[in-house]
């Protein structure tokens, strides 16, 4: 099993009456709710937590991209990832990911991901999301019905930019470049492992299987609701004749660990409810620009999850509903262990994106939950999927002799440290 510690980086100071007084947490969120001085402290706190997860032995640490969003303060995840690459040396750095249709030209992603891979010594997991409709269409103005076509072109361009040894001309519909010659190239060849975060578009499944990419289902609906969709994915994997390695699939799950089940509720309930009640207050009119999803996907019923009714439901959920419904896996280490097993087996997944900072959780609670998970939960789950032990097709392959960035603390010359060591 692989466990990636993830922080969405929410803004923790949304007012109590946010849902009543504000239109949406995303796209047109009131910018006066953001305070840069508090933001300064917050970025450091959140990055410290990601580094802490690395020190506790999580397999990876993860960041993602959102725009104009009150629960995701990373319009550029690559900036955060660059900071992490300098201050960690063990965990994979999962950038899940860059919305490749938004970069103009998309060779920018080939370049920045190559830089991250080189700086981190080959620890990059490269995510290529289509991007949500909120980010892609409403914030970044992409024409909904052409977004997927533009995404496909960007994908082709980036893969070629990484692979081709000679400069080449690219005559695309959305990008015309006379000299594509990405420099530097990534350490991991022919490319870093590619993760495709999906929210339920069924054509993404074929794309993942055909290219041997990991399909990562990211939702806040939890593992019980997520099963229907992942069952569809695995069915498609089988139909297309691919093997059923659980590492083809990943799932994002909110997890809170405490000493006892009762303590978990006492410590985390208010923060989880902050997340579901305030952070997920997205105006439904921004959820799905017409044309963003294909008719095939709409007909398959994926839209059901995005209905206004679903939005309304989040705000009415109690802690009990959230835990029993599997939205949140919370409790004592034993409880969390059991439920994680149910999730991992039920969804047939090899990689979990562990959402362990949630809503407005203070730093100490985040660390407490994270440490308990690393010490008392993770060791019991690591050897699940014995039949697929060693299947590292979707994991990074770092340099053996990569540098330990911690040695450079204080800006001292690396040569100086080496001499002192000898």
């Amino acid at each position, binding site marked *: 099993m692989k466990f990636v510690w993830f922080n969405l980086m929410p803004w923790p100071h949304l007012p109590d009456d946010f849902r009543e007084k504000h239109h949406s947490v995303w796209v047109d969120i009131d910018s006066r709710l953001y305070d840069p001085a508090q933001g300064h402290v917050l970025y450091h706190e959140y990055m410290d937590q990601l580094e802490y997860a690395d020190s506790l032995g999580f397999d990876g640490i993860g960041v993602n991209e959102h725009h104009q969003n009150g629960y995701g303060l990373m319009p550029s995840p690559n900036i955060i990832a660059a900071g992490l690459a300098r201050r960690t040396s063990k965990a994979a750095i999962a950038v899940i990911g860059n919305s490749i249709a938004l970069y103009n030209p998309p060779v920018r992603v080939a370049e920045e991901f190559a830089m991250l891979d080189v700086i981190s010594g080959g620890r990059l997991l490269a995510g290529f999301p289509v991007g949500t409709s909120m980010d892609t*269409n409403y914030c970044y103005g992409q024409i909904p019905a*052409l977004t997927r076509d533009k995404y496909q072109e960007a994908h082709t361009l980036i893969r070629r930019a990484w692979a081709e040894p000679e400069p080449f001309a690219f005559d695309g519909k959305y990008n015309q470049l006379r000299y594509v010659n990405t420099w530097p190239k990534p350490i991991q060849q022919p490319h870093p492992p590619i993760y495709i975060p999906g929210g339920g578009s069924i054509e993404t499944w074929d794309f993942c299987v055909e290219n041997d990419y990991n399909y990562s289902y990211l939702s806040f609906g939890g593992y019980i609701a997520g099963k229907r969709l992942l069952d569809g994915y695995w069915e498609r994997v089988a139909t297309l004749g691919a093997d059923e390695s659980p590492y083809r699939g990943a799932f994002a799950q909110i997890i809170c660990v405490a000493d006892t089940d009762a303590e978990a509720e006492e410590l985390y309930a208010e923060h989880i409810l902050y997340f579901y009640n305030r952070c997920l207050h997205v105006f*439904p009119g921004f959820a799905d620009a*017409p044309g963003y999803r294909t008719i095939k996907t709409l007909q398959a019923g994926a839209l059901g999850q995005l209905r206004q009714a679903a939005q309304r439901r989040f705000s009415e959920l109690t802690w009990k509903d959230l835990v029993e419904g599997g939205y949140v896996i919370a409790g004592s280490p034993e409880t969390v262990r059991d439920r994680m097993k149910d999730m991992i087996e039920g969804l047939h997944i090899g990689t979990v994106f562990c959402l362990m900072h949630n809503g407005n959780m203070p730093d100490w609670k985040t660390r407490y939950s994270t440490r308990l998970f690393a010490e008392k939960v993770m060791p019991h789950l690591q050897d699940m999927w014995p039949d697929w032990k060693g299947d590292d097709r979707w994991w990074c392959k770092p340099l053996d002799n990569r540098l330990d960035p911690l040695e450079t603390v204080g800006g001292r010359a690396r040569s100086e440290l080496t001499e002192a060591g000898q």
Partner: protein
Amino acid sequence: MMGWERIDTAKGTSCRVWRHGQGSPLVYLHGSAGILEADGLLSALAREHTVYAPELPGFGESSGEELLEDMLDFTLHGWDVVNALGLDRPTLVGHSLGGMVAAEMACVCPERVEHLGLIAPAGLWMDEHPVADIFGVLPQSLPGLLFHDPAQGAAALTGGVDFSDDDALVSFFVENARRLGTAGKLLFPIPNRRLSKRIYRLAARTAVIWGESDRLIPPVYASRWGQLIPGAEVVLIPDAGHMVTLEAPAAVADAIEKLLVR
């Protein structure tokens, strides 16, 4: 002669065309809601003309929308349809999205358009008067933007779908996604594909017709079109919104007939 017929364009799209009436040919290009059964304007126009109302690919039973991506594609598609119908210089009338396409067609081939009726056309943008964002509202809010009388209008727009019923809402969403997804190629995120750079080529005698209660594209745009097209007649219609074609079909038809005798 009346009813639906089907044409295939040279590019490869397949379109239904609603044909009705007798008289000089008039091609009517519909807006983002498609050809509505309740549209009284088409029958009103059919009293004096042979009305051809082609359905745009991406709407109803017309297909091939994947072949149409940008403004030039849609403009040439308009002429491909006219050619497939065997028409030479029909009167062009367009509403909203269709008005935008009709104006572009008249700019690209000015020698083929003698009379042009633009009913609340999209295609211009003024920062100080933003056009409302039809892509960023819930379906149940659309009638309020589109009609002078939203309660009456809602039924006409949806064929009587009850939006308080979740399943009906979802099924409307699917149909709407295809229509508006196609319209979005010209209208998203800002309904401006630089027509104003080409409008100097427009040579047709033109009527600009607008509902006074239009809350989608406010009537200030009627004056703007009037300024940009020398000699255009601007007609404002009271007690009608953006769907003036449904709310005041007789007044719109009347304005078109007056244009044709100019």
